[in-house]
């Protein structure tokens, strides 16, 4: 079975541009979460979607937005890119979006975004 897949794997943008990152969850999973991982730090929560609705948002500016499609795939959009947005963007999926003993969160390999 395929795991969480993300595209593209690497991306280079310049300041002020817009970027769209894509994620396909594990088959059967209805929840997708997005995390930002700056080099040398742990991942930071950005968004969670379940059944196409936003269920949670981290402390990120409005330049960050996301959506989930009827097939449960998701897009993360970032507008007006800043140098500080350079990071590894991770997508994670789970069945119902309530991580616990009975429901693990599975991460993709991420999209490495470099803003020049």
């Amino acid at each position, binding site marked *: 079975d395929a795991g969480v897949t993300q595209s593209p794997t690497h991306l280079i943008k310049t300041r002020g541009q817009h970027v769209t990152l894509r994620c396909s969850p594990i088959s059967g999973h209805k929840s997708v979460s997005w995390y930002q991982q700056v080099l040398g730090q*742990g991942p930071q929560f950005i968004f*969670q979607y379940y059944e196409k609705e936003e269920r*949670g948002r981290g402390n990120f500016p409005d330049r960050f937005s996301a959506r989930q499609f009827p097939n449960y795939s998701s897009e993360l959009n970032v507008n007006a890119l800043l140098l500080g947005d350079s990071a590894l963007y991770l997508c994670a999926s789970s069945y119902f979006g309530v*991580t616990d003993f009975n429901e693990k969160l599975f991460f993709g*390999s991420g999209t490495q975004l470099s803003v020049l």
Partner: protein
Amino acid sequence: GESVGLHLPTLSVQEGDNSIINCAYSNSASDYFIWYKQESGKGPQFIIDIRSNMDKRQGQRVTVLLNKTVKHLSLQIAATQPGDSAVYFCAEKITGGYNKLIFGAGTRLAVHP
């Protein structure tokens, strides 16, 4: 891919030794904790988890200990192997609600033959 562990504290061990990785968590209301392993160019991979009503849980070659009094977690890896070399993160969550995990800073484990 880029290494995620360039500026992280590093634990160096000899192959075959036991490793202990420590983590201090931040929220006393957190009641579910997870250890993840992250290799270069990959996303975090689940290792083991524990609930706050437990103080110890064992898996295959790994044990997690939880001390709620001092908000401390540890991950013990028995008979450490070269394939265990990676960055290890602890994460905390408040059960229920949505999927927000709060990750610690991470520790890089370097296993030497």
